[in-house]
């Protein structure tokens, strides 16, 4: 997440959209960690979503 923050800062103006889809059982903890890492790009809340069920494994 932190590495992609640098991508976001460097290339957002050139048209690159950086985002994360959070998958975490504790939403408040996910928010806390996101803030702690100083993430400013978009973070979707994907926990329990169809998108998570369909694609979030690996």
């Amino acid at each position: 997440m932190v590495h992609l923050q640098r991508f976001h800062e460097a290339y957002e103006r050139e048209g690159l959209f950086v985002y994360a889809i959070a998958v975490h059982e504790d939403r408040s903890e996910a928010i806390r960690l996101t803030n702690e890492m100083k993430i400013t790009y978009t973070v979707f809340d994907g926990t329990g979503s169809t998108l998570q069920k369909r694609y979030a494994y690996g």
Partner: protein
Amino acid sequence: MHVSSSGLALALANIILLFTCVGCAPDGSSARRTTTRGDKAPAPGDAFPSFAFPDDGGNLVSWATEDRAFEAVNERTQTPAFVVHVFQPDCGACRDEAAALVSLLREHPSLRVVGIAHRGDAAAVAAYERDLDVSFPLAIATGTDWARTWGRGDPTYIVDRRGRIAYMQMGFEPADALLWRSVASDLEAGRPASVSGSGRRMLKVGDKLPSIDLPDLADGRPLRLDSDSGRLVFRDTDGRERPYSASIGFFSRY
């Protein structure tokens, strides 16, 4: 980075999404494809390869392609249906799947099930076994070539008595257990499996990036990344829309 062509950008967006978050592998229902690393992706009909990996106590758990024998915990057996649960210890869906496999094994005791961790160390695997009261052996393949080729997507393989993959799936949903039961019954009866996969598959290079309609993590307000029109347009929580040329996205478990 300079991107200007929307077509090229969308292709790039797909590639990067795959690379960063979901890997690439087939559902097995179509022709063989390659993964992002260029390895051949496993598919139904393939011979399941031999392996020998230690469990968390250092005892070897193995499968031999030559005589289709599974060996673990002082037992060497051949089975009409050998189920391979490839997992990561910190993966919630994997945990749900392990519990479902314990039930499957109870109903189909002729099966043999093995779990193979493609990530995580012995301590994490021991905790997984203890937390879930897993009744089948768990081996650790973390860091191996096998894990890179056969572990992508937290797959489940059901191997028939010929040593071929009869069924495979990526990830896990509870309804998959119904398919396992069907496949197990077919294989126990000596019939070909009537289903070879769950139909669910991971994104691959060239796929269209799905549009994303999810709330903002911080404030719960709706966000949308629209790729339906062939362009990437992000609608922020304030309703403003902005076009983008490319994207990098990933799932984060933190």
